[in-house]
């Protein structure tokens, strides 16, 4: 009896392993290909038949990409925009979500529904008025104008996520604090915010990721090359007739690395963020 069970378990775990490895290989392959291409020279990339396992690697593509194009500048622009967006968005959204979650007042429901609905508006609806409006008030081609744009788009999703987190925090904690003499402001800052740190991190993560990779508004609202963000910069590397794929991939890796590192290290906050705090961990 025991032997049969042991064999069955072994079989299914080996099968699981094989399945996992095959799945991983197939789904991870494009990333592998990107890294591989960034480390090779042109003749190997255009070789036929292409080699799946490289013979030699070199880092010179990174050097030429970093020196040939203002990638560092693009990255710093992206960093400025992303961090500004994240900070502003989290602050504003946390306050608004707390208000909607905790207090009952007129218009609360409509407000909540409107914030939810505005998530669904397609960005192309805004691009035209934004372009003309920003030109008039002189915010066109500024990084902070872009950050404001991103913030306004991220607020709906962030409020929705944070509201879910606040909803899941029992009110007894706040009530206890109030009984002890704290006023509402103190309750918010000293009790609720520390407890909902996970929610704040999740919200900040989404705002950051969205701002880092955004392309359409960056391309339209930024008009001079020195203010390009990484998305626009990397996209520009593919000319109409030529494409130096090795350099492009090197630039792509450099552009992707910061946000990938951020996502990987904060990965466990992603799920709870997506499910609005209803699922922990």
């Amino acid at each position, binding site marked *: 009896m025991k032997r049969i069970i042991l064999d069955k378990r072994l079989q299914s775990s080996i099968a699981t392993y094989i399945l*996992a490895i095959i799945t991983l290989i197939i789904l991870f392959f494009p*990333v592998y290909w990107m890294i591989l291409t960034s480390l090779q020279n042109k003749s190997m*990339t255009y070789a036929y038949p292409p080699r799946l396992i490289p013979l030699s690697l070199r880092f010179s593509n990174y050097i030429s990409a970093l020196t040939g194009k203002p990638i560092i500048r693009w990255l710093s622009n992206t960093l400025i925009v992303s961090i500004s967006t994240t900070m502003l968005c989290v602050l504003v959204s946390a306050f608004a979500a707390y208000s909607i979650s905790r207090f009952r007042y007129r218009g609360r429901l409509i*407000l909540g529904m409107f914030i939810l609905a505005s998530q669904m508006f397609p960005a192309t609806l805004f691009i035209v008025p934004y372009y003309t409006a920003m030109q008039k008030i002189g915010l066109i081609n500024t990084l902070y104008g872009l950050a404001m744009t991103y913030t306004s788009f991220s607020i709906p999703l962030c*409020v929705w996520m944070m509201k879910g987190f606040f909803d899941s925090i029992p009110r007894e904690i706040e009530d206890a604090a109030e009984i002890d003499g704290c006023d509402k402001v103190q309750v918010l800052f000293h009790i609720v915010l520390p407890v909902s740190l996970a929610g704040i991190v999740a919200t900040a993560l989404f705002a950051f990721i969205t701002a880092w990779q955004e392309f359409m508004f960056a391309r339209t609202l930024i008009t001079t090359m020195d203010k390009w963000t990484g998305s626009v910069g990397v996209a520009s590397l593919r000319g109409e007739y030529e*494409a130096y794929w090795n350099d492009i991939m090197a630039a792509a890796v450099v*552009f992707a690395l910061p946000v990938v590192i951020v996502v990987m290290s904060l990965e466990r906050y992603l799920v709870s963020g*997506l499910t609005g705090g209803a699922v922990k961990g």
Partner: protein
Amino acid sequence: MKKQKWFPYALVLPAVLIVALFIVFPIIQAVSMSFHSIGFTASRQNQYVGLSNYHNMLINPSFRRALRVTLTYTVGSVLGAYLIGLATALLMNMRFRGRHFARMCLLLPWALPQVVVAMIWMLMYDYQYGIVNYLFMKFGLIEQNVNWLGDPSGIIPMIAVLLTSIWNQFPVAMLMLLAGLLMIPSELYEAADIDGAGVFQRFRYITLPGLRSVTNVLILLFTIWAFKRFDLIYLMTQGGPLQATETLIVQTYQQAFQFWNMGYAATLGMFSLVLSLLFSAIYLQVVKFGGESML
């Protein structure tokens, strides 16, 4: 304690202000623009044209084509990402060493910026040197090189764009479904084992129903995102070849910034807005009837 009545209003004020300024106001402007023909030169100023933009839109075959393309793309990418997400979630739910590492690797397609995803796949889809053609031929899936992004039939590019989108989106489904799987009480599975249920029966009667609320949220989220998607499609095909992958959103952008028909573009934008609101309202109603509310 009672005297701080202004507090909740003060808290919500910044968000309301920003939303009013940056979302409500532009929408009102877009509405107004949709009733005008927007001119940029001295000789051609803005003209009030009433409903003619809307009329032109409805009779325009390009518009109807964009609707079909949008439907195909949305259904394809939502279903594809959901199914792959479900499969990987089921896989990741099993115990094996390196499970966490595997999950992080599978997260990468979503973590990469969309521009990077587009670049990678454009390289892979290359007609002559692309690895996709090479591998597919090697495995006997195709007989000769396929022009993935430029084939005039339009079907191949749509498939190419769908594959890339699915690859980019499935990790979200995987994460959410994984979380949903963990919430299904194990007692149900134990009871099923006692009753002698097989793998497929367990899946059909316990797993799938248990995932219903997560699935509902996921489908809604994915559909809205697919409908709004611009970066990936525009970067890879610009809506081509011959508008074969031109969804409503891509067409709106082209009309605005390639043809400079701002008024008409605003009209398309209005239509997209109404469509997405309608879909959400209908979907939420349907889901409510299905039982569990999800928000």
